[in-house]
């Protein structure tokens, strides 16, 4: 573990600002680093700028008329700030976007095929598919039904599997636990951890469910109002009293706690 931390980060983001429509500043100088082979969490509440941060890294900002107006993003030492989303996928960055967004009118099998890089041969693709079906046996069972009719958990698994076909070195996930039952969240997070450990894939995880996320990551960043307000190891964050109070619900993690503290937290930040 020790040498991993000291290695050159696979991704580094330095004081990045993002503008939407040339006017709205969505993130204001975010700097984060993902060390190679580690799992990092990006925590924070709704609208804090977590998704925008991921889109800046994957290049999907452009589709929403956003752009990086300041700062730089480096992937394995290369500046990728202005690259096309497609080039970044080829380089090894894959973004599992929020809300699952599987190709509903395609079967799971076709979803995986659609994501395969053009250079991948048929036999390589089949090996890759089998690997993904091994991670997610539920998908294998339903590989030829229409993806739009899969359950929420299955769709999330498919979205992750689809990203894995691109053979990423850095996998980014936006709220994979959203709307899923706790046992499914545990299952999916367990698989993410397994992929991270077995393949050495670096993972950047955006989560509102801080409790679950901090169980599997090594470090976390806390983003509020478009800025990084806290950064530390998962252990340190878990024991931090502010985090406990505002994001972990006093350690009990019920939603009602979060709701109750919402207005208080806003005052504390401003």
């Amino acid at each position, binding site marked *: 573990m020790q040498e991993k931390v000291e290695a050159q980060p696979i991704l580094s983001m330095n004081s990045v600002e993002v503008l939407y429509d040339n006017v709205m500043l969505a993130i204001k100088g975010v700097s984060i680093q993902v060390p190679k082979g580690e799992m990092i969490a990006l925590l924070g509440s709704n609208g804090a700028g977590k998704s925008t941060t991921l889109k800046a890294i*994957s*290049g*999907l900002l452009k*589709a*929403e008329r956003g752009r990086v107006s300041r700062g730089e993003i480096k992937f394995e030492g290369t500046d990728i700030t202005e690259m096309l*989303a*497609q080039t*970044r*996928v*080829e380089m090894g960055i*894959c*973004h*599992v*976007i929020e809300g699952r*967004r*599987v*190709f*509903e*009118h*395609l079967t799971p099998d*076709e*979803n995986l*095929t*659609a*994501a*395969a*890089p053009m250079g991948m041969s048929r036999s390589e693709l089949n090996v890759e598919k089998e690997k993904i079906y091994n991670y997610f046996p539920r998908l294998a069972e339903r590989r030829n039904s*229409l993806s*739009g*009719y899969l359950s929420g958990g299955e769709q999330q698994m498919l979205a992750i599997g*689809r*990203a894995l*076909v*691109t053979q990423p070195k850095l996998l980014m996930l936006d709220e994979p636990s959203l709307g899923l039952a706790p046992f499914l969240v545990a299952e999916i997070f367990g698989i993410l951890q397994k992929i991270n450990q077995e393949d050495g894939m670096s993972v950047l995880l955006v989560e509102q469910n801080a409790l679950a996320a901090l169980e599997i990551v090594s470090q976390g960043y806390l983003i509020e109002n478009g800025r990084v307000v806290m950064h530390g190891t998962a252990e340190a964050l878990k024991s931090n009293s502010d985090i406990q109070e505002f994001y972990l619900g006093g350690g009990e993690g019920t939603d009602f706690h979060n709701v109750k503290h919402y207005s208080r937290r806003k005052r504390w930040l401003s």
Partner: protein
Amino acid sequence: MDWIFLSELAINGALTGLLYSLFAIGLVLIYKASSVPNLAQGGLTMVGAYVVLALSHDAGLPLWLAIPLAAVIMFGLGFGIERVALRRLAGRPVVMILMLTLGLDIFLRGTTLAIWGGTSRSMELGVSYEPLFMGDIFISRIHLVGAGVAIGLFVAFMLFFRSRTGIKLRAIADDYMASWSVGISVERGVGLSWALASVVAVAAGVIWGEIQGVDQALSLLLLKGLTVAVLGGLDSILGAVVAGIILGIVENVGSDFLDPLVGGGSRELIVAAVLILTVMIRPHGLFGRHDIERV
């Protein structure tokens, strides 16, 4: 009731319908890969016919060379349209893209008028006008050729949409954002669908140009083609073929009954009625995809 006459009407109707399908396949291709109904398909078909004429009659190439060459040129034109016009609009509301294709249709019509004028020219494919006899039934040869081309393209595209590239195009139609997120080039995919639709336009332009002459009226095929595509379900190639046959038969047989009653011109009425009723009763057509809503 004269059964022989009725079956002649039905068979020729079905063949004409397959020619509508030939046109509609181009519409379906673009819809299947980008979820945009292409109102410029009529214009493309007309341009396709003019390009063939320019290569064969004006430049003196034989038809067997002129038609494939025109297909290549139109393939490039399809890609060009995406690059110049559509790329800027990717991800914008469909209605804006719809207006763009309408503008494109008018532009193409104006361009051919400026270059080649408005006089109707003949294609001269060399297919005999002697009807074929099937028992007592007359069948037009050119319709038979066109129907064969339609079925050939249908088979080719059914296979294409199962290939890896075809699956990527279907993925694009489903979700642009998700496609970008896994590295699918949405721009290139949409460009490819326009390029293929432009090639289909050459086929439709040649056949229809032979039947009704090459002039700006070719672009009006859009109305029937769109009716067929909507009835079949805008994203289904099988739908386009089946709906073409249905519309052709209904139109041919129906107008034979109605024309004496209303004094002619009931064909257009029947086509319009089919379009309106489809949208009202079964908006996703016979084979079109439903929007999936899980409970």
